[in-house]
């Protein structure tokens, strides 16, 4: 699996009608690392993720290992949306098996895939629920099913839009730990996250976005303590450092009316 190289974004602009969602951004996202996109609502994080996935048209250039990404099906990429559609009448096992469709063909399942899915179901604590309908899963279980399907794809790159927003504190950590395991396999992880504390805990790199522009990107520890991060949130956040050295970022209570 290739871990070298990077995703290069050059003068990338996305417009819907006369509204500019991403405004002439340029950056490099290294492979094999976890990069987290943070910023206030409306910063363009989800759009950037959709552009990276290859479904949103753009002007400028966005190349993944030298390949222009728009509508490019050659890339091996997994996508975990913030609000997934819940297919009626589909079992957990069938749902996770969709992750193998690109390898085995639709509606087919190789012996190897069966073994892989068996292992993934155990790994994501979904084993025993194979025959449950995905429509009956709780928020946390559904998120695990999404992650399981993404794992089944054995992707080179995984894009996650707010992977923890529907989860309680315990499940947030549990899901993020499972995603983090992907790094051992050389998978590139790009996620958006509202919780900057969690972003700082897991991501190596953080990209701070505001109003369709990239304000700052770099190593997580540097970005967290930078003044640009504060200004992205209009100085309405406080950064504390715990005794363990871990940063904790919270909204400033007094500034919010």
């Amino acid at each position: 699996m290739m871990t070298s190289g990077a995703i290069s974004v050059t003068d990338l602009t996305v417009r819907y009608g006369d509204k500019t969602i991403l405004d002439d951004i340029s950056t490099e996202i290294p492979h094999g690392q976890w990069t987290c996109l943070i910023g206030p609502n409306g910063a363009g994080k989800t759009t950037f993720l959709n552009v990276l996935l290859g479904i949103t048209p753009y002007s400028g250039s966005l190349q993944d290992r030298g390949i222009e990404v728009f509508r490019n099906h050659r890339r091996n990429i997994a996508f975990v949306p913030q609000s997934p559609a819940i297919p009626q009448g589909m079992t957990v096992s069938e749902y996770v098996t969709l992750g193998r469709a690109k390898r085995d063909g639709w509606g087919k399942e190789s012996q190897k895939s069966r073994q892989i899915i068996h292992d993934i179901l155990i790994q994501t604590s979904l084993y025993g629920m194979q025959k449950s309908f995905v429509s009956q899963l709780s928020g946390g279980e559904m998120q695990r099913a999404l992650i399981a399907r993404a794992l089944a794809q054995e992707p080179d790159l995984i894009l996650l839009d707010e992977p923890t927003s529907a989860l309680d504190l315990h499940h947030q950590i549990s899901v993020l730990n499972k995603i983090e395991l992907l790094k051992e396999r050389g998978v590139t992880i790009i996620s958006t996250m509202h919780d900057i504390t969690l972003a700082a805990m897991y991501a190596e790199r953080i990209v701070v976005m505001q109003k369709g522009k990239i304000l700052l990107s770099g190593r997580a520890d540097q970005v967290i303590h930078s003044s640009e991060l504060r200004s992205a949130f209009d100085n309405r956040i406080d950064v504390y450092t715990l005794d363990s050295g871990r940063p904790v970022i919270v909204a400033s209570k007094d500034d919010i009316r």
Partner: protein
Amino acid sequence: MKDTSSVVIARIWNWRITAICGLLLAIVAIAAVSFGPIHIGFVQVFKTLVGFPDGLSNQSQTVIMQLRLPRVVLGALVGAALATSGAVYQTVFHNPLADPYLLGAASGAGLGATIALTSTHHNVVALLPLFAFLGGILAVLTSFFVSGKFFAEPNTLLLSGIAVGSFATAIQTYLQQRHTAQLRPVYSWILGDLTAASWNVVAWSSIYIAIALIILFTVAKQLDGLMLTDGEAFSLGINPNRLRILAVGAATLATATAVSASGLIGFVGIVVPHLVRGVTRRVTNRSLVSIALVGAAFLVLADLGARTLLSPAELPIGVITAFVGAPFFLFVLRNRRKANIS
């Protein structure tokens, strides 16, 4: 491994259901050929169908081969087309109540048929199926263009389908009122009937319906991807818009053909997919072949009822499908809620 065996069982179960549906269709079809003003025994019908009509009068052979069989075959084709299209529309639009007439196909075909029936030229009346077919296709295309982008917003498409449908119905009603002499044939066509069935009608409609069904069966498994968001579908290797256009295009071709051959037969496209799903408990598009077979059997049976219940008079087949379909649909809905698979 427990997991492997459960997958294999699920597959056999599915094939078993498909085989049972096929058997059901065969039995219903033989019964439908057998019953009528002249009763012909099952065995003799079967023998005639496989090419050994020994002992059967020429008159009975003609009744089987020229009157009843084309009607049964056409009923099966129309039923399969409507049920499969309904299932595909429900999957593509994420809407369990979607039916094949949703995008204006029915109203457009109704308008086309009314234009043909109210025309003063005798030649045009003979072209009724063509008019209905073009009307249906044109209405669906108009819905697409009125809604702006293809599938950018499925609900906008559904709403424009409703608007186009209402517009076509308005013109159709106007034409109907202007030509009251033709009121009866127009009305009877709208309620659906298979009385016009002949090998000629079977021949042309089977070509279009076969093309549409082959396309739909081929992409059936991929339709799983359309139950997800477009981003997920794309990451799984699907071009969601291309697949939607292909699926809806094929379903519309099947629907327009069915409507032009037999008029507007309601309820099959909604009831049958839900019925099959209630039994198989599988995702709709994974049971598409079974849905087609049950749709065919359902309509052949409904037509048998339509021509025998008040014999020698005929009931419109749409009356039968709704009369039987509606209560049955409610029954399935109640049970499905109990099983909590909705």
